């Protein structure tokens, strides 16, 4: 049973600050016209996924869940990659 009684309360506010700063950074980074589009996309996606990861890990308490739940949650990831890969293949 891991609804979070066992561990000390997660750093909610710290995560919030992190999310806020990353959002600002994203918006700023997006306006840089000097760097090529591909790097713009990669950088933005990296920041977005970091934010999403933080939300999942701290706010959704995944960090304190049993490994079997991790297993369950990771099931769609390969499917996502397969679908995106194939649709991209359609164009290039």
């Amino acid at each position, binding site marked *: 049973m891991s609804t979070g009684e066992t561990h000390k309360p997660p750093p909610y506010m710290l995560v919030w600050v992190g999310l806020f700063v990353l959002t600002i950074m994203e918006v700023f980074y997006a306006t840089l016209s000097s760097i090529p589009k591909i790097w713009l996309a990669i950088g933005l996606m990296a920041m977005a996924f970091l934010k999403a990861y933080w939300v999942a890990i701290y706010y959704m308490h995944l960090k304190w869940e049993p490994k079997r739940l991790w297993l369950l949650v990771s099931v769609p990831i390969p*499917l996502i990659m397969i679908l995106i890969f*194939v649709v991209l293949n*359609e164009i290039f």
Partner: protein
Amino acid sequence: MSTIEQEMVHAAEGGHHDDHELPFIRKYIFSTDHKMIAKQFLFVSLFFLVIGGLLAMMMRWQLGYPGEPMPGGMMLPDAMMAPTPDGAIMLPEFYNSLVTMHGTIMIFFAIMPLLVGLFGNLLIPLQIGAEDMAFPRLNMISFWLAVPAGILMLASFAVEGGAAGSGWTSYAPLSASGEWTGVYLGQQLWLASLTILGFSSLVGAVNYITTVINMRAPGMTWFRMPLPTWALFVTAILILLAIPVLAGALIMLLFDQTIGTGFFRPEVGGEPLLWQHLFWFFGHPEVYILILPAMGIASEVLSNRARKPIFGYHSMVMAIIGIGFLGWIVWGHHMFMSGMNPLLGTSFMISTMAIAVPSAIKTFNWLATIWKGDLHLDSPMLYALAFVSMFIIGGLSGIFMASTPVDIYIHDTYFIVAHIHYVLFGGSLFAIFAGITFWFPKMFGRMMNETLNKVHFGLTIVLYNLVFWPMHNLGLQGMMRRIYDFTQYEYLAPLQPMNQFISISVFLLVAAQSVYAFNFFWSIFRGEKASNNPWDSNTLEWTVPSPPPHGNFPEMPVVYRGPYEYSSPESETDFYPQTKPPSKPPVQELIPEPVTPTPEGF
């Protein structure tokens, strides 16, 4: 969410096993009892099975007697039939609607609810030793979402322009705008109906997965679960992850139809192939949603009626999981001719070929299961054996399409039609007959009439093959599918006699089903009373009365062994129930102490 919450309270109280009488409406209509919901799915989908059969008969009339007036055609409106002095002749737009609706209704409203809705609800809680589903009220909602979906689908026949006419795959752009087919509202109802049905299946899947993971009785470890439950569990995962993709695609197509977005409409830059990718990304898992539970049911019946442990239980489970995974990486083999990048075609061909591995495991293990068995050839066993035999044919004919060059010729011909029916009718439907006959006593407390079942089996297996075997030959002669009048092509005109032969066989095949229908309803009221365990089976559902009381298990069952311990030397009878305590002291960690239910909830 609100419902889920009250669910908890309800499920928690489920621990009471209180047998107080519920008012009629809560007991038979808005019931939260998984057994009643299973029966509701059974009756509704049998109704749709009949509808689908009638649509097939009309279709076959047109193919057997192209352009000849259809008997009783005068009763249908002029939008479907062109009246002439000597009777009404079918219109091509109505034929296209028939093609579309036969496929849609049979797949989404007959076979899928029978396998998932009926057997999922009936078997999962009973076979894992749970008193009900994890979320009984969600379970009820799942059924009552399916009903309006079905009503919408049928209603589309009555609306202006008729029912959807772009095939059950609804390839865009034909389906993306009414201007191509003349069907506007019908297509939109089709999309709306399937979206609602998808949500219904989704709710069901969440329920099944939670139940199997969390609600197993003490000692019911993963590898002590009966194969039907295993198959339904993997099926639920497929539904959970495949249906949302379809729902997204359906809604986008609905937007294209109604508010004029451009996802699949090339005239504004949309991508028709995107629809096919999304559809088949759902569609191939769907194919396995339709066969996996059938495999589970067949395994259960074969092992039980052969009084022999299933051959290679673990590899059977692995095969189910393997098929479940492969389902996600082979969808492109539906699109070899679609204009998809041909290099993708090659990789999809290889991954498709890999399906031979789990299929071979299953088929040969079934053969090995009846090898040196003690076969009780009563009707469930006959249906199950028919399933194996027909599934072999369907599987082998699949290899032809998997080979891309051969597929160039047979793609979109009747060879495909034969293949899909050997898997869906010969496979799934025979397994469904086996399952209904096998679990009939558990559902209704009475046995089905054996003689009538054997008559029905004999007629069906013969007529069925007379219908679908020749379709291979039609396909090899180059006859396209979904074609209103093949005599338009002179090279197909010589196929007229064979098409007539098939049509007549179809009429007889559908007529033969009345035997089963009669037996079914007659046995519900007049069949001989069934004992708790008429088949001498090991699994948990047979340890409780037929039909089981509300809450299923008087006290929490404890499981000591796998489900297929037939003819075990440890047991004096030729079966060895999972709940029977072993004679010699058991391994301790496998049998935790039964916990006493506590009523407290949130």
